């Protein structure tokens, strides 16, 4: 139940930044196959996710956030 909640919130936050409906996109879909997920939006998305979940990613971790699943895993690591 907790995982579903994180997933819904994550998709809402990321979808807003990327201006894309992510609900139909697989969690493992690579970042470069998602329209709008460019380098600048990636940084904005990281900041938005950090605000939403009260977490903070290291500079080493940020480039590794290359799918919805990877972002979710990084959040769960800190919760």
């Amino acid at each position, binding site marked *: 139940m907790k995982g579903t909640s994180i997933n819904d919130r994550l998709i809402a936050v990321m979808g807003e930044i990327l201006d894309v409906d992510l609900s139909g996109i697989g969690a493992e879909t690579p970042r470069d196959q998602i329209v709008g997920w460019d380098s*600048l939006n990636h*940084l*904005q998305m*990281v*900041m938005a996710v950090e605000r939403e979940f009260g977490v*903070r990613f*290291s*500079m080493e971790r940020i480039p590794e956030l290359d799918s919805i699943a990877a972002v979710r895993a990084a959040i769960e690591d800190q919760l």
Partner: protein
Amino acid sequence: MKVGGILRRFLLPRFLITAYGAMRYGCFISPRAEVELSRNLTIGGGSVISSFTKVKTTGGPLRIGRDVSISTNCFLSTGGGGVEIGDKSMIGPNAAVIGSAYSYLELTTPIADQALISKGIRIEPNVWIGAGCSILDGATIGTGSIITANTVVSGVVPPNSIVSGNPGKVIFERR
């Protein structure tokens, strides 16, 4: 413009300005750049001003730090508030740094006839300004910041920020 300024601007061969910059400041001013030499100008050693860049210094002080890189086709002008560019900062091609602005308080007076105002611009050390950016009067950019291409900055940017858009907004904090 005073006679000396006119002579320096139109009659002084550019290669002499390049030689003067190298001897006086230890910097490189491209022979194809147009840099107004005046007492307002200070350039740190190791700095580079690339071709087709125009630097106007008659309006106020321009202090360029050490190892600053100003790329091709930029425009820098100063007002009374001055412009300061910190050490090891980089300015990409086609950027504009404009240290003054017209007042527009009088509706019935043409804007061109109203006063020029200048709060000054401060670019702290280790700042990277991308191609096509406009840095306007009143801007202060904190050290370690990155201004992405075509961004417009006229306010205060905290240190270690990545700024994008028009008006420029902080999209990321470097860590």
